[in-house]
């Protein structure tokens, strides 16, 4: 019997970040926020209104923002930086590498507008390489959340965790389907639904599509096990191996380049521990382009149907 996931409202994950930031700020006076001229896009207004003295408007100067955040940790602060994912990672990679990751600073790099679903602005802003960039840094925790509630819970959770974190979320308005009271455990997979024929491992905006794919597969008599990996690093290897021992094959789904993303992390794990057929639902080594989020997800092969087809294909390879 499959679980039924429904939703009563649609919201953007970035609003979950804004709500989580406000709550984290209320819980801990050491939480501070920085933004590089994108306060509205990052939904930081509520935090700024509540804690004006704990907010730093940096201007369009992302490198300086990362450095200032690293410096703030030295005085015991817990800084949350906010800008688009592209400007949170690729633009400031060396600043993150030296001043945050190598220096092991307690900075929370919070990145909105990740992936294709940024939409009309086009490829200059649609980073599809950020998970790879961040997961390669030793000691960096990498999280990609799937809906409003999970993003809010993750934002609160990372404030309570000591160490550098990359938190990735997005712009589009999507179903809110995770329970509002669901605890967010860094590094722990969420079992969305159990099945026996194929494991679907999804992250970020692809989780809802994986649920839709699971329903369609069930109608065809295929029982998919659906796992949400919100923490790409450290990876919940135990949960992944346990599931694939049962199903014997896996589809990974992510709004990211197939190179460097969640799929490769799963493949690395399986190649050493449990060689198994795997199909990748991911962007095929390409930049994005202008269009609506839905149009882009279709054009670049990130729709529900792509997960369904990948599942059918991978089952045949068992």
């Amino acid at each position, binding site marked *: 019997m499959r679980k039924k996931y429904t939703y009563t409202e649609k919201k953007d994950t970035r609003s979950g970040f804004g709500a989580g930031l406000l709550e984290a700020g209320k819980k801990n006076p050491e939480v*501070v926020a920085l933004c590089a001229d994108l306060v509205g896009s990052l939904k930081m207004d509520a935090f700024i209104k509540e804690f004006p*003295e*704990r907010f*730093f408007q*940096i*201007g369009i*100067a992302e*490198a*300086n*923002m*990362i*450095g*200032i*955040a*690293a*410096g*703030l*940790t*030295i*005085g*015991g*602060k817990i*800084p949350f930086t906010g800008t688009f994912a592209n400007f949170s990672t690729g633009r400031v990679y*060396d*600043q993150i*590498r*030296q*001043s945050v990751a*190598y*220096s*092991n*600073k307690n900075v929370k790099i919070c990145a909105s507008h990740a992936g294709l679903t940024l939409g009309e602005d086009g490829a200059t802003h649609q980073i599809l390489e950020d998970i790879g960039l961040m997961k390669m840094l030793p000691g960096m925790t990498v999280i990609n959340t799937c809906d409003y509630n999970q993003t809010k819970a993750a934002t609160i959770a990372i404030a309570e965790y000591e160490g550098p974190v990359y938190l990735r979320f997005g712009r589009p308005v999507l179903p809110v389907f995770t329970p509002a009271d669901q605890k967010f455990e860094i590094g722990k997979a969420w079992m969305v639904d159990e099945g026996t024929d194929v494991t679907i491992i999804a992250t970020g905006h692809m989780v809802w599509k994986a649920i839709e794919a699971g329903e369609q597969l069930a109608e065809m008599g295929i029982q998919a096990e659906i796992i949400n990996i919100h923490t790409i690093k450290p990876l919940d290897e135990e949960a992944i191996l346990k599931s694939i021992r049962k199903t014997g094959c896996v589809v990974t789904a992510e709004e990211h380049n197939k190179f460097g993303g969640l799929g490769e992390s799963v493949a690395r794990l399986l190649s050493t521990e449990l060689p198994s057929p795997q199909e990748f639902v991911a962007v095929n080594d390409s930049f994005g382009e202008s269009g609506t989020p839905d149009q882009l997800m279709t054009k670049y092969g990130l729709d529900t149907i792509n997960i369904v087809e990948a599942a059918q294909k991978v089952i045949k390879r068992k």
Partner: protein
Amino acid sequence: MKHTINELEDIASQVRRDIVRMVHGCQSGHPGGSLGCADFLTALYFEAMNHSTDFNMEGNGEDLFFLSNGHISPVWYSVLARSGYFDPSELVTFRKLNTRLQGHPTTHEHLPGIRIASGSLGQGLSVAIGAALAKKLNKDKSLIFALLGDGELQEGQNWEAIMFAPHNKVDNLIATIDYNGQQIDGPTEQVLSLENLQAKFEAFGWHVITSDGNDMDNIVKALHYAKSLTGKGRPILNLMSTQMGSGVDFMMGSHKWHGVAPNDEQLANALGQLNSTLQDY
């Protein structure tokens, strides 16, 4: 004054001996800029800064120092050791496998006195500003000091930070430029001219003072004057002229000794010019 000028000069002489011996010991590293800043860092740690050698990362209630041009690590390591952060005998491990004294300063090996990694240039001023903002949030009246190379100002991130600090009235920050006019590929004026640094910083809203970084009396006065200017709404920039290789005649006046180690004969020559005042490590 915690020390007389003569005492500070004696310490700086020992620091210079440490620098050339460390760089000679591993046959790598950056003696030129290190020697040029030996007087400044001695004055900072032995005179200007209120700090504790009982190191903790947050440094609440203490003045903190950030080195942005991390390649002059030998001078910082020597001054940290000579002021009591760790035993000077550890200087012999500089740049060797399993050392806490990495080629460029890091927190990764937990060397007391170091609060951020530096080496990839242009990042230190931003970090110093962050630490200064944290001091303000913590109602901590102590100060943040930073040292930057002049060639390093070619990195764009510096100008983001230089713009940010006056706008946000970061007036508990004293940044110093090691103004030696040299970088790896040659004189700064040939590689990429800095033009009028004083005018540039003033245009951005900094309070600029100038000093001679190889004249101990002048440095001490400049640092005390800089401290008197804090808390007045503007960050302070100490534009400090230095001579790369200062104290060792054959290393002075050129960029040649930016990143080259002396051989045995050159070491002996250099040590012959520098008094041993605190005992070699």
